[in-house]
């Protein structure tokens, strides 16, 4: 595959490793903590090479102890370091919510600005055959925590650019990737670049309906849009990229033109990303036709039939688009 000028094709996992590598090289305070992040290179090889380059002191294998892992990261951050804590699956982040939410997200506020905790918690959401306790998307929880930044790249370039921005942000950031993204590849600029936190992007321009989504679901939206295009329906896809703070303006700008919105997320709908996007967009542009797409209100089984039934696919997105356009 040939690459654009000034760009290089990287796997998603390579894009993360590159961002971390550059930031570790630039700032000795950046360290990595996580299970099997050392010589093993991470569950998805997303830390590959860092251990060899920076050594065991800055790339640290931890025990299976998510609560302490986050606590250590948060504490080291509050003491001036910039740790990345790798929590393999987002389901296990529950174990570390106390230090993240009760301490890190509040540290700056409660100390009147004396303490900030620039920790990056990197974790993997979504379903890929791993069953009820390894498939959850809990981004929406974090969006409701004041003090947290939440980013969720959908491709290699943003994985790279958002990780770099996250590692420079002066407060806690949760970096949410997705199991199905790791084997994907994409163009990443050769030059160092930073994807700005808090900026959504129009991934595909369109006229009839806006699909607001993030992470792996951007690809599902793209598939739906491709198929709908053949039927003459033109979808504009907004990739939220940052979930907190939410870039309402970009979505609202799109919806102001299309007057129809489908929100798409892999997680649960109730109190989900889509609920928030829908509300805030309508605050800006008034009532428009809206549908939400998300997981069925049920756990996600590892069973191939049931997993496929539970999580959104292009067909369900297409249905939702047709629903709002028929409304």
């Amino acid at each position, binding site marked *: 595959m040939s690459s654009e000028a000034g760009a290089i094709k990287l796997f998603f996992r390579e894009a993360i490793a590159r961002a971390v590598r550059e930031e570790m090289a630039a700032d000795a305070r950046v360290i990595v903590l996580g299970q099997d992040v050392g010589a093993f290179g991470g569950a998805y090889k997303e830390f590959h090479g860092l251990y060899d380059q920076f050594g065991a002191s800055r790339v640290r294998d931890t025990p299976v102890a998510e609560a302490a892992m986050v606590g250590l990261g948060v504490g080291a951050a509050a003491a001036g370091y910039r740790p990345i804590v790798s929590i393999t699956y987002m389901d296990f982040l529950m174990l570390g919510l106390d230090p993240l939410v009760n301490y890190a997200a509040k540290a700056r506020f409660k100390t009147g600005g004396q303490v900030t905790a620039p920790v990056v918690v990197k974790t993997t959401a979504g379903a890929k055959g791993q069953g009820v306790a390894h498939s959850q998307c809990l981004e929406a929880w974090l969006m409701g925590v004041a003090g947290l930044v939440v980013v969720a790249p959908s491709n290699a370039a943003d994985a790279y650019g958002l990780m770099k921005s996250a590692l420079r942000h002066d407060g806690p950031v949760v970096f949410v990737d997705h199991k199905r993204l790791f084997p994907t590849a994409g163009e990443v600029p050769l030059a160092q670049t930073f994807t700005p936190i808090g900026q959504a992007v129009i991934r595909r321009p369109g006229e009839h309906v806006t699909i607001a989504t993030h992470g792996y679901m951007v690809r599902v939206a793209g598939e739906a849009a491709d198929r709908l295009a053949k039927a003459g329906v033109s979808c504009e896809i907004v990739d939220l990229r940052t979930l907190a703070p939410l870039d309402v303006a970009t979505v609202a700008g799109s919806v102001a033109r299309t007057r129809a919105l489908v929100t798409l997320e892999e997680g649960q709908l109730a109190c989900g990303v889509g609920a928030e996007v829908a509300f805030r967009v309508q605050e800006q542009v008034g009532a428009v036709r809206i549908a939400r797409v998300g997981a069925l209100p049920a756990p996600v089984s590892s069973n191939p039939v049931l997993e496929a039934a*539970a999580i959104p696919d292009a067909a369900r997105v297409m249905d939702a688009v047709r629903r709002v356009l028929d409304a």
Partner: protein
Amino acid sequence: MDRLAALKAMLLIRRFEVALDARPDHGFQLYSSGEEAVAVGVCAALEPGDQLLCSGRSIGPALARGIDPRLVMAELLGKAAGPSGGKGGRGHLAKPDQGFFGAHAVVAGNISIAAGAALAAQLEAKGGLVVCIFGDGACGAGALHETLNIAALWRLPLLLVCDNNGLSVSTPREAALAPAKLSDLAAPFGVTAATVDGMDVEAVHAQATEFAARARSGGGPAFLECLSQRFFSHSTATRETRSAETMRRVLDRCPIRLYADRLRLNGQLGDDDLTRIEREVDDLVAGAMAFADASPYPDPAEALRDVV
């Protein structure tokens, strides 16, 4: 413990996994091969009314507990005939009405849940025991500390079994856990503990039996560390990190062969016995596979059933 039954139970786990591994549609799996003596030795100390919980590495424990291999195979292959209708699948096998409370794929996540089941057993006062098998990796988690403390205070009928295969994915136990012996973790709480050779089914069984009797009679919880070896990589989706030489050494000490050799030496196992056992096991495995194959996948509508 019926020696030939124990040998057969171990062989069943091994051959079941070989057969499963040959299936391209198994998704991915975590195998118990190499660790058969732990599950079989522990389960031989259990009674029907007891409950067993285990981690995501659950094929050994499920089969050792006596769950019909057909049901286990169907569940692992995601078929409707599984005890959970194929909804739990790998990492979440369960058949509580036969004393297999179930697997739970969150590392250390079932330790306090097991204590809760032990609390129920204590309140029921029928002498029931709850056993929880977890890995060395789980010993770094706070759940163990919290549970040991409460189980000790309340003298719960709980047997905590650490199947210490020396690895958590790629991380050697020494790199992840400071204690010299993992059974030392029980000492501060006054919880009785022991470390045994987890490749020796009789050693496991003897110690588990002693602890089980103690817990049943109100003596409180116990912690049993079994030193074992993982014969495969962490899961079928995970790259092996041990060197070929290490693997040779690991595979060289097979709990099944060790036990068969010992029984043969003691005149407790004849060639006929072994042939018969192997045939029975092969029949069971073939039957399990046929059963699973005959079962359909669940109806997609199951995705919304049994939620609340």
